């Protein structure tokens, strides 16, 4: 009786059997990569804004303090997006006719607010409080990156839960002196030594209870 299969079928079958394992592993690996990539986290993506506002220019260039615009960052969970009024404080004096600032002037004239595109977006079930992080000596740059180097603002960190927990589990790696919180260019001299000291001094707790953020 004639053979049903060619000899090569043997190899083929062996390859499939062993291959299956690796194929599955590979697929999982790819998925794992995607959920950590900007595709899922929006990390490093610049967004279209009504006005191409440049932190680089205002912070690095003009040396304006974060709190001049983000007024409630030390008092409230929400850092605060400046009202048009704040822009106009200066721009009623300078660049009064710049086309770029047209929407700002329009907003101020009509009383219709500017609609900025949100860059840092946490899910609704996560509650984040700026003021306490600032108070405990976590620098703006620790999460927002070198804003002062961003012509257009983008999200510097992945903002995944693992990323949050990295700091919540070992704050000493990131805590900095209070007076350096708003200093974009701050570089720790000896974090290994300074960190634990600050953690003690500021009573920084390792808050990893679920209800710290989720409620």
């Amino acid at each position: 009786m004639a053979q049903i299969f060619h000899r090569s079928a043997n190899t083929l079958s062996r390859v499939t059997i062993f291959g299956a394992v690796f194929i599955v592993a590979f697929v999982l690996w790819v998925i794992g990569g995607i959920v950590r990539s900007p595709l899922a986290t929006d990390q490093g993506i610049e967004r279209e804004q009504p006005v191409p506002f440049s932190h680089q220019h205002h912070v690095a260039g003009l040396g304006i303090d974060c709190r001049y615009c983000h007024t409630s960052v030390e008092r409230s969970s929400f850092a605060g997006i400046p009202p048009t009024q704040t822009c106009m404080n200066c721009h009623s004096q300078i660049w009064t006719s710049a086309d770029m600032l047209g929407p700002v002037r329009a907003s101020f004239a009509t009383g219709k607010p500017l609609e900025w595109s949100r860059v840092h977006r946490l899910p609704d079930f996560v509650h984040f409080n700026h003021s306490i992080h600032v108070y405990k000596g976590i620098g703006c740059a620790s999460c927002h990156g070198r804003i002062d180097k961003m012509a257009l603002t983008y999200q510097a960190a992945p903002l995944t839960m693992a990323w949050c927990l990295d700091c919540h589990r070992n704050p000493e790696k990131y805590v900095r002196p209070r007076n350096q919180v708003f200093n974009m260019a701050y570089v720790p001299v000896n974090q290994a030594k300074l960190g634990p000291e600050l953690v003690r001094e500021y009573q920084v707790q390792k808050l990893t209870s679920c209800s710290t953020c989720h409620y």
Partner: protein
Amino acid sequence: MKELTLNDFRKRAEGGGLYRSLDELARDDDFIAAVEREFPQQALPLERGVDRRDFVKLMSSSLALAGLAACNRPAEKIVPYVSQPESLIPGRPLYFATALALGGVGAGVLVESHMGRPTKIEGNPDHPSSLGGSDAMMQAAILGLYDPDRAQVVRHLGEIATWSAFLAALQPVLKDAKSNGAGLRLLTQTITSPTLGAQIQQLLAAYPGMEWHQWEAVSRDNVREGLRMAFGGYTNAVYHFDKANVVVSLDSDFLAAGPGHLRYARDFTSRRKVRHGQTASMNRLYSFDCGASSTGSLADHRWPVRPSEIEGLARALPAAIMKDLEANRGASIVIAGDDQPPIVHTVVMALNQALGNIGSTITITDPVEVAPVNQLESLRQLVTDINAGAVKALVMLGGNPVYDAPADFNFHHALTKVPFRAQLSPYYDETSMLVHWHVPEVHALEGWSDVRGHDGTISIVQPLIAPLYNGRSPHEVVGAMIGGLDQSPYDSVRAYWFAKGANEQSWRKWLHDGQIAGSALPARQVAIAPLPPAGEGPRSGGEGLQLHIRPDPNIHDGRFANNGWLQELPKPQTKICWENVALISPKTANDIGYDDEKRSALVNERSTVRADVTYRGRKVRLPLWVMPGHPDGVLTVYLGYGRTYGGKVATPEVGVNIYPVRFSDAMSGGAGAEIALVGGEDAYPVACTQEHQSINPKDMYGQEREIIRAGTFAEYQRDPHLGHKEHHGDESMYPPHVYKNHAWAMVIDTSVCTGCNGCVIACQAENNIAIVGKTEVHRERELHWLRIDRYFRGEPSNPEVFHQPVPCMQCENAPCEPVCPVEATSHSDDGLNDMTYNRCVGTRYCSNNCPYKVRRFNFFHYADYDTPALKPMRNPDVTIRTRGVMEKCTYCVQRVNEAKIEAEKRGGNQRVRDGEVTTACAQACPTEAIVFGDMNDKTSRVAALKGEPAHYALLAELNTRPRTTYLGTIRNPNPEIKGTS
């Protein structure tokens, strides 16, 4: 299809002879079609079988919500202010003091506002009528404010019109009234607002022939008239329960209803919080209860009596009670219920006078109403005049008389005879269907006004938000009728008080305090009039089955019928929601053939039979509900249901309308009702959240579960532990938790819980808890995080009642935690059982393993994501749960976290101090039965209460080590009286 106008409608009304409701009139396709054409929102109630979820979807599309489009900003956009208000810090709430009124009498509140959106109401601790407490209706006012079913536009014959058009239409009427005077009538509800009062007086002056009528379905006519007979002239009685050692309640529910009940509850229970080592004696409450009242459930001695027996009792109280009263002259109170006829109040006041209570525990002041009248007579007069054709124009400020006027007045019939009829009301309701002009009324949180408290204290009512739905305030309407320049309510109120000598500084202070300090009415000297002889009185005929009509504990006279929170709230005593039933005693049930066998089969299924109740030839079909401790031969029914118009929650067919059997000479029912079981009908489902009621050992198959710990004051002094043995054995396989920082805990004093439900709605408002509708409640899927368990002990004829609020116990050895496969529920550093909604996959194992069954599961997508109107109402600090997720009480962890953060920011390792944070339920509780705090802080109130001897944990033998614990119920019966009945 032919156009159908209001005139056709009126013809049908007149031609059709007798008809029961507008619905009956509307049983006509082209009429329905016409209405649907006119009012798209009304289309739903008219057609049948729409459940809550469906119309919620509909609401999202209805034009009603267009106005709020600005409030739901796209998720990916941030919209800052153009110029930011000074006081406002984004992300931090602000609090404003104002007042909410029910039946005209106000109580001070503080309203939490997030970015200009009021989200939560709390009692105002400085206000004498509230002292920081709040009840379910006050808490639910937030939902009332955003309710998308509220009337949104001025309507003329149902068609959209404008305010100016209304004013224009008003002019000829007013001109006419000015020329020949008579014919113009004003119908209002009870008014205590000095400003509005003054405006109305001005109006009356402007139109000499004009008359002012007042009508409120649940009025205090009996009290008013009773006091008038006693003291000659209208007065107001203010009680001081904190000074009373002995209280006798004759069918009065002073702890849960009526002006000042929050204050009264606080004062009364302040004498019942028995603490270790405290020597002060405990007060004593005798209650003669005609229905199932909260006051009765708290009483030391309770007797169920027929309403008609009260007068007799008032004239001759049992000897033992008289003895007790005599022993406490000047330190006792006898109080009669609002439903009792005037004569009872007169007699009771005479008794108080004789006992020397008046002046000590009872203060008599001038009335709080600007113009007290007998409202029933006032309305009767109006109807008579209309029928006599003497009324040319009728302007109604608030109220819904077509729905709630006495049946024999036939008000809707009369109303259609008035040539010009205008109504100002929050909903487009039964009355609105019959008026020419309907003007939407502002919500109390939307407009300026002022109001008096139960003792006359005046609060300025300030708006939290501009009118959402183009509402107008009574001040505006009256102002417009007076004529002259169009004055805003703000100007009216301000002008009035500045004329009264206020200045900018005092005005600001009043607004800040939420009251005008020292504006309480002064005590006045009164002489008691001679007592009229016994015998007469409308309810002498005490034979046969008595119909006993009461305002609903949740939706009052029906004005809150469209409030989903109040509709779904289990009624304090019956635990029934979403409808009204006929309450009868077990004996009566057997007498009418609804015997125990029939019942036991149904009780497990939360079902019952229905019966036709016939009273004076009018028939209503009601579900029967057997209420232990209910007086025999009495049939208690609640008003406010069976609405035909006025919102998608209130209609259609939510409960039964009782007004058709409410007659002007028997406003709270009377003898001679007949009842017949409806045959050949299968079990009628009732949305009752707790069908198992008794904790009698025999009903538990001989098992004593030690759920309730109770004893008498005497027993307590002998054995403060109330004969309760502590359970030992804290072994656990797992290492014990250590709580270095805080250890949040709660103690609930069951002695002083009236079951008023304030905490339940407070929790619902604070935590964005969804409502699920009657069907789902009947399937035992209600979502309330905090429930109030109600148990009976003793003979069903007159058992002891216990209220036990049950939030999450936050166990230290929590059964729920280890069984969750994804760690969605876990133990926090402070000892809370965290519930992480976004991690939950919904295996429901935690709920199965929870001995207290306090976990709540979203079997469907209950939360309303769609309705734009409701989005600004939600508490931004709490996640809105989705389908398939478990949820439960969190000890308001959002408040706890906020407090911890603020404390830390004070610097120097600051801990949260006692009293800096409390849960929504504890804050709302009028009697401070719920105390929340940090157990690790030895100086905290909660730590002290944990040391009380009467302190115990629920199901302690399971070694769950709950953080929520209880104080045993202590009662103070009179040793000279054996048994409670």
